């Protein structure tokens, strides 16, 4: 059988291979080298780190868990580790290769590591310090991968290793140092002058320049001396009497007087060919020099460089590779190897940031590169790739620690999430730059409309045109619209906040609005409100003051509102029976739980000047404002229970004593609730008490109003706009998500398809946004700016949906390129919190609104044409739900 013979042939090859590896030499071995298998386990898994020479002269670094060492060989591993001499070679079993037997999960042997030295790009060496008494070495591979950090534990080592052959009193040799010393006898190693602790292995010319490796590297630490380019010819390892080049030795002593004994083993110097260098370079190197103790001379360096230049550098030559900040890969992480196929152009934002941030960014680039290689993996594997022990080490703990000190770096660091989410976040930070440029261009177009059209439909926009062309979306006909080109003339109208001077100029001497209500609404929509007058302007928008009221009337309203409020509050505050009722107690507990964890970082709610009356929150005190939040929420329950058609009165109270909640409701609603139609038919009040999220909505309006009474009424006004979200049947949320669904479908069919594929069309990742109007997504000051735009109801009463669409639109490429499941999208979107640029989002939201308008117009026109021509319109109608979005308040 052909198959059989093929298998047999393969078996032969395998046999041959294993024969080749039959008698490797063990050059270095160190027991008690730990690898952390999970971030939290303290020590990790112990194993042996060794350097092995295969019989075909390949050097292999391998780490084998103790648990995997066959009993027979253990002695020899330990044996050599206690010898410490390079001329002792032992024959051991071939290094085990990770195999693919059907293990159910991770097994110690899964952590086995075996790599040729030639695959090592660089090493990060962290000698023992006060806080890290073991010290560690991280190996970065060509191609950007890193091995898990090796921690060199000294305790528990055989005493021979600890003491070794060192003179009495000398400090024990640190395992990492020994590893380095041994390695530099096998390959070319230079220390980086830029990054202490970084050692490049067989570095290219460009890498050396980047690392300033031509100047004497800085010492590792007082204890561990720098490992300098000291290489020994492989063939001479076992020679006991190498030639010595005294001249070079003198030179080196002048340059590096502190070189340590352990490093300056007598050796024959050679011109560091790569381990895989061809025979010619090997023979050249063998004859090229004499020998030296310590580092080679500068001349030697140059000569060696010219050799290596001819090799590896060819691969790495690329336009972007001339400076560290070019973003073309990390000198530390070895991300260059993949660059030959796709040279990246320097990213503008990377040129003027501090080196640390840059390093981090570059590291992440390498993460990106790695993930791009694994992009085909199934979802679950990739979800967790970042938790993989090897990935964990991509950013060494030390670097992470340093990064924590840098605010700018912190922003890009973030936590380790699932791979795609992580990747997506990173991609987003990069995409942001391109976005910014487009935005600037758009702003130019907006400010200089005569030139408009010159720059339309570039970059992302250009791509979007194609989306519409090649997508067979559910709204078929919409897709043929060349939306981008046609909409490129649409600009936002964002401007400065409404100033006090402007505001007062709107009123006549009676304090009555002399401009139209629509004018005020538009002004607030376009720019928001100066904080000094927010307290006043919000009262109009939240239904406390009628738009046509005079100053005198407003004085009366204020006192009436106060009376009304206190009457409502008294109903529970002064009534022991109500307070003792189970419903009230239950509501009170609910409210207290949330109030104590609402916006406590805002100074208005931060202080702990009062003991917590609930006593339920150990260590959490209270303050006057928190107590008022509770009172307002409890009073709101009373108010809501009296609203028309209240189906579940919370408190059995005399309705006649209530002030006029109905009137207030009518006054404040202004048709601005979230209903799909603008018809203000009274609907059953499905509010049945406090629901989580309400405290989030109350806190800002209370803080702006600054007092209990106005805080309450402003909250009532806000709830009129949002209360459907809190109904028992969640009808408000449902209809919002449904509308958003249609919006995505029409404005971005490709994204819609992607969400469908991800089984994410429930849009639950937008749930928090819409439930509490992005309260958790923006900083406190931005919330006020956003909310007043939403209050304005200028274009639509549901502008929050366009805001949501704008955020999705901004991240649509990242979502489509990197996220492939509901959980990934949810995580990504949740983590956008506090990173969203409000001003840009509002600009985009306005444009998206106009874009929808445009689509609806086009479809209507087309349908009319079709009807005229053939009698029936074939283009599907715009869903009513979307049409309703475009209805303004009037």
């Amino acid at each position, binding site marked *: 059988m052909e198959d059989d013979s093929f298998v047999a042939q393969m078996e032969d090859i395998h046999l041959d291979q294993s024969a080749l590896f039959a008698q490797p030499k063990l050059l270095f071995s160190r027991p008690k080298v730990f690898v952390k298998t*999970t971030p939290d386990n303290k020590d990790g898994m112990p194993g042996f780190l060794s350097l092995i020479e295969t019989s075909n002269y390949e050097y292999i670094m391998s780490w084998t868990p103790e648990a995997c060492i066959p009993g027979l060989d253990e002695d020899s591993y330990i044996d050599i580790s206690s010898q410490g001499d390079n001329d002792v070679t032992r024959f051991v079993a071939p290094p085990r290769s990770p195999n693919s037997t059907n293990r159910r999960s991770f097994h110690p042997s899964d952590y086995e590591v075996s790599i040729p030295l030639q695959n090592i790009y660089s090493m990060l060496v962290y000698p023992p310090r006060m806080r890290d008494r073991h010290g560690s070495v991280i190996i970065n591979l060509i191609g950007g991968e890193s091995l898990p950090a090796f921690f060199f534990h000294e305790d528990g080592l055989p005493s021979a290793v600890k003491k070794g052959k060192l003179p009495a009193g000398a400090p024990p040799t640190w395992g990492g140092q020994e590893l380095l010393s041994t390695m530099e006898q096998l390959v070319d190693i230079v220390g980086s002058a830029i990054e202490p602790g970084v050692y490049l292995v067989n570095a290219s010319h460009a890498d050396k320049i980047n690392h300033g490796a031509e100047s004497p590297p800085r010492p590792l630490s007082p204890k561990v001396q720098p490992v300098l380019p000291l290489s020994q010819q492989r063939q001479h390892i076992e020679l006991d009497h190498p030639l010595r080049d005294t001249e070079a030795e003198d030179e080196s002593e002048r340059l590096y007087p502190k070189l340590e004994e352990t490093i300056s083993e007598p050796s024959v110097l050679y011109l560091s060919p790569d381990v895989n260098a061809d025979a010619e370079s090997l023979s050249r190197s063998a004859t090229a020099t004499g020998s030296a103790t310590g580092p080679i001379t500068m001349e030697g360096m140059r000569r060696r460089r010219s050799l290596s230049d001819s090799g590896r550098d060819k691969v790495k030559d690329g336009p972007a590779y001339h400076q560290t900040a070019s973003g073309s890969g990390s000198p530390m992480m070895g991300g260059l190897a993949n660059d030959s196929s796709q040279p990246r152009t320097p990213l503008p934002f990377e040129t003027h940031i501090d080196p640390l941030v840059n390093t981090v960014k570059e590291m992440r680039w390498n993460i990106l590169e790695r993930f791009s290689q694994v992009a085909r993996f199934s979802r679950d594997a990739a979800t967790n790739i970042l938790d993989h022990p090897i990935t964990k080490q991509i950013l060494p703990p030390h670097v992470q620690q340093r990064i924590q000190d840098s605010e700018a770096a912190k922003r890009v660091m973030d936590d380790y999430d699932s791979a795609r989410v992580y990747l997506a976040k990173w991609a987003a930070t990069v995409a942001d730059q391109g976005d910014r440029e487009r935005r600037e261009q758009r702003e130019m177009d907006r400010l200089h409309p005569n030139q408009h059209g010159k720059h339309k439909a570039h970059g992302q926009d250009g791509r979007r045109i194609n989306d519409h062309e090649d997508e067979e979306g559910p709204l078929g006909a919409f897709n043929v619209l060349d939306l981008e080109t046609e909409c490129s003339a649409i600009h936002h109208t964002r401007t400065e906040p409404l100033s006090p001077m402007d505001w007062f100029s709107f009123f006549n001497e009676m304090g009555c609005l002399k401009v139209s209500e629509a004018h005020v609404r538009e002004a607030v929509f376009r720019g928001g409100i100066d904080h000094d007058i927010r307290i006043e302007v919000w009262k109009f928008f939240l239904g406390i003051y009628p738009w046509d009221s005079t100053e005198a009337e407003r004085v009366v309203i204020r006192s009436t509102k106060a009376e009304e409020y206190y009457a409502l509050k008294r109903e529970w505050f002064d009534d022991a029976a109500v307070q003792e009722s189970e419903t009230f107690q239950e509501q009170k507990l609910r409210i207290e739980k949330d109030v104590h964890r609402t916006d406590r970082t805002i100074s208005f709610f931060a202080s702990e000047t009062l003991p917590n009356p609930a006593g339920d929150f150990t260590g959490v005190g209270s303050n006057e404002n928190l107590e008022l939040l509770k009172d307002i929420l409890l009073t709101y329950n009373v108010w809501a229970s009296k609203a028309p058609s209240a189906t579940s009165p919370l408190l059995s109270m005399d309705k006649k004593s209530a002030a006029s909640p109905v009137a207030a409701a009518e006054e404040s609603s202004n048709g601005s609730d979230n209903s799909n139609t603008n018809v203000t038919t009274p609907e059953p009040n499905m509010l049945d008490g406090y629901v989580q999220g309400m405290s989030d909505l109350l806190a800002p309006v209370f803080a702006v109003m600054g007092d209990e009474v106005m805080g309450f009424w402003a909250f009532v006004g806000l709830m009129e706009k949002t209360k459907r979200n809190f109904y028992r049947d969640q009808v408000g949320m449902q209809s919002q998500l449904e509308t958003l669904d249609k919006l995505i479908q029409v404005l971005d069919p490709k994204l819609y398809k992607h969400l469908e594929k991800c089984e994410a069309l429930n849009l639950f990742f937008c749930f928090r946004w819409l439930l509490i109007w992005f309260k958790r997504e923006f900083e406190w000051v931005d919330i006020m700016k956003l909310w007043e735009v939403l209050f304005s109801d200028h274009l639509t009463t549901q502008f929050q949906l366009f805001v949501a669409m704008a955020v999705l639109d901004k991240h649509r490429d990242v979502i489509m390129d990197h996220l492939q499941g509901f959980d990934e999208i949810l995580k990504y979107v949740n983590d956008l919190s506090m990173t969203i640029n409000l001003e840009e989002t509002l600009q985009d939201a306005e444009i998206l609104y106009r874009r929808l308008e445009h689509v609806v117009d086009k479809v209507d026109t087309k349908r009319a044409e079709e009807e005229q021509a053939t009698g029936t319109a074939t283009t599907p109608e715009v869903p009513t739900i979307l049409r309703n979005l475009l209805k303004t308040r009037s």
Partner: protein
Amino acid sequence: MASRKKVLLKVIILGESGVGKTSLMNQYVNKKFSNQYKATIGADFLTKEVLVDDRLVTMQIWDTAGQERFQSLGVAFYRGADCCVLVYDVNNAKSFETLESWRDEFLIQASPRDPNFPFVVIGNKIDMEESKRMISQKRAMAWCQSKGNIPYFETSAKEAINVEQAFQTIAKNALQQEVEVEIDFPDPIKIDSDTSKDFGCAC
């Protein structure tokens, strides 16, 4: 190319609002505690790698909103769960009494195939003074026993008492539940590309 099997364990934390679901998750995953975690809206999750019986598994721990109003979202979040953690506050009788309905709701929405789907019950906030305690250990254990011997832990997310142990059991029970997901994971280190040709993979 060597193949690595990754196991993803999906764990859902349920319970009344304010019992400490978010705190437990954060204490376990991030070793952090704050008494000011905001009320969870919707849902969120954290992941953590753990060794269970020498196996490295990834736990995806879902923190959900505690108010029953938002239970309709559950179906999206509960799907594919491997273990459900029911949390109550030992100082709050009502939070204990609602465990039953949380459990029922989960079973309805997640509709796990296994009739013996693993639950773990956690009585949290045992750091509070004894006089505040409303539910005795005995009572809680009796309930757990009556529901098919659900493992029971008393914890303090605030003082990191028993949290690790509880989640170890959660991971263990979830792992037993998990039907093996066979996923090829790339071997991060290629030892010898010549000898390790992968014939089975079509990609």
